[in-house]
């Protein structure tokens, strides 16, 4: 049975993600160890760290793709990995995810991909779904790609189409996993502007994993730094830039090419 979606809006400044002493063991390796941080509504939180520091694992915990202890993780007030049936469905309707490779379904056209969440979770007629999809495509500056397949798009267009799918349900919270990976500076800048617009015009909260220093400097409100599975820093971009922690200093210095 379909249900009516009750969008629970979040107020700016409200704590939208709370992580307290989150540890994660994959196989025999402890990937995350007592990670703690928070993200506030209406802000862009960027998770930083060298490759292998546990960023993607942390993101998968936040998305409920890996299970976490009940009390150590709250996203939109809930632990996503403990949700089932209708609660799980409702939770995922309130978040959007932009995957590193786009993760559009290759067997479906761009239009069908973007309209899929609406088709599955609402009772909208087909014409309305198409209109919403076309509007979202316009929002991400993609023109006549509705009937094309993901394999027919360039890397930059694919990322923007994936962004359109991530925001098609107008979620209050958007996760981005290395959105700039593999993009040239022009396309990267376009994507950053689109993500910034989502924050400014829609008040969307964004949690992002990225290595692109230009994106970090352009967008970050809040920085979380992971080192070998430990969260060693969280704070504003300004405090991250002036922080004395060697790992963080080194990260920004190397990123600037010093």
């Amino acid at each position, binding site marked *: 049975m379909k249900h009516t979606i009750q969008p629970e809006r979040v107020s700016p400044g409200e704590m939208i993600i709370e992580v307290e002493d989150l540890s994660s063991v994959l196989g025999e390796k402890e990937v995350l160890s007592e990670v703690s941080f928070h993200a506030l509504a209406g802000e862009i939180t960027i998770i930083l760290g060298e490759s292998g520091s546990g960023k993607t694992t942390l993101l998968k915990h936040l998305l409920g*793709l890996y299970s976490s202890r009940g009390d150590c993780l709250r996203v939109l007030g809930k632990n996503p990995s403990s949700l089932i049936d209708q609660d799980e469905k409702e939770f*995922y*309707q309130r978040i959007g*995810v932009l995957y590193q490779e786009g993760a*559009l379904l290759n067997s*479906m056209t761009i239009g069908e991909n973007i309209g*899929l*969440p609406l088709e*599955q979770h609402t009772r909208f007629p087909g014409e309305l779904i198409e209109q919403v999809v076309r509007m979202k495509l316009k929002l991400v500056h993609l023109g006549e790609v509705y009937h094309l397949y993901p394999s027919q798009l360039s890397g930059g267009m694919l990322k923007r189409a994936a962004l359109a*799918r991530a925001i098609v349900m107008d979620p209050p919270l958007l996760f981005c996993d290395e959105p700039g990976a593999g993009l040239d500076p022009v396309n990267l800048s376009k994507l950053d502007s689109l993500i910034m617009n989502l924050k400014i015009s829609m008040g969307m909260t964004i949690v992002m994993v990225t290595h692109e220093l230009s994106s970090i400097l352009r967008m970050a409100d809040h920085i979380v730094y992971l080192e070998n599975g430990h969260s060693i820093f969280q704070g504003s971009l300004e405090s991250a830039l002036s922080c004395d922690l060697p790992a963080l200093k080194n990260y920004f210095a190397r990123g600037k090419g010093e």
Partner: protein
Amino acid sequence: MRIKSRLNPTSNDTTSIYLEAQVLKISGSLNINSVDDLLESYNLVLHKYDGKVLEIHLDELIEADDIGITSLKYLLTKLSNKGIHLEITGANQQIQRQLELYTGDPEIERTQVEKPGYFEELGRKLTILFNDHLVAYLHLAAEITYWSFITMFIRRAHRRGEVVNQAVLMGVNAAFIVGTMSFIIGLVLALQSAAQLRSFGANIYIVDLTVIAMMSEMGPLITAIMVAGRSGSSIAAEIATMKVTSETDALKTMGMNPVRFVIVPKMYAGFLTIPFLTILADLMGILGGLLIASSYLDISPVVFINRMQESLLLKDIITGILKSLVFSYLIVLTGSYYGFRVQKGAAGVGKVTTNAVVVAISMVIVADSIIGLLIY
């Protein structure tokens, strides 16, 4: 004594290796072309060297690339392992720097990995099979069964037209190959039996043999093996690719169950088409038998069909259909299971695809035996 000397084809330098008393002199340039000479010089002469000290003179060594330096270090390590004290002199600044940069020592860095014993390895594999594979396989089986049942009562649980698409892929597109193979197998089965039956004067029993064998055994089995090869591999590869490219994660984070969205339509398509494919295989196999009976054993098609009506029991037909449904379930389940177990990378997709086909065919044969034992 000059051990080796040759003109370097790339730089017009001559690489030479001399051994005189306690002095090994290497000159020219050391690169990929001269490495063989360096190693040969050890095998021919240097390994017999019995002095306590060896001076390595590199005064005339002009240049060396990475392979040349690595080989030189390799040679020096071999000599020093024989207890010879080496004194390297005369290396130019560049060569000196390269020698210092190279710190790798394959002889020392090679870590000894203790190989587990036969029974230890067997035990480890059995533990993985029962604790990991079997539990996960049964868990997926339960999930697929649950969603296949529930989805029958829910509208728009998957993409519109997806069941028909899958039915075309699994059933319609396989009809020609399944039909042809069954016809040939029916033909061969009858042909092999014909000579034996004729010598006993039991020509008419060719009908019983062909019909019963095809309807209750060969038809379902041939169909299942063909479908496991075609669709089992395709299901595993599709799901594995979706997993590698995060499409299954994307489905979950859009609030959709990947099992319900991706596998259930394939399960329905299998249930819808494989029984029909099996009936097609039965008929084509019988047709092959009829052809041999009429051409080798003088049994006319009319006699063949009349006898067929007498020998064919409803039980055989139902057994065949029942088997085809079980096989269909096993093929889709096994393909999906291996698809979800993929590790990262293209090689992972290839590996799970192969495993899916091998295990699906094995399970079909085991299931066939169990059903056979239960029914007869």
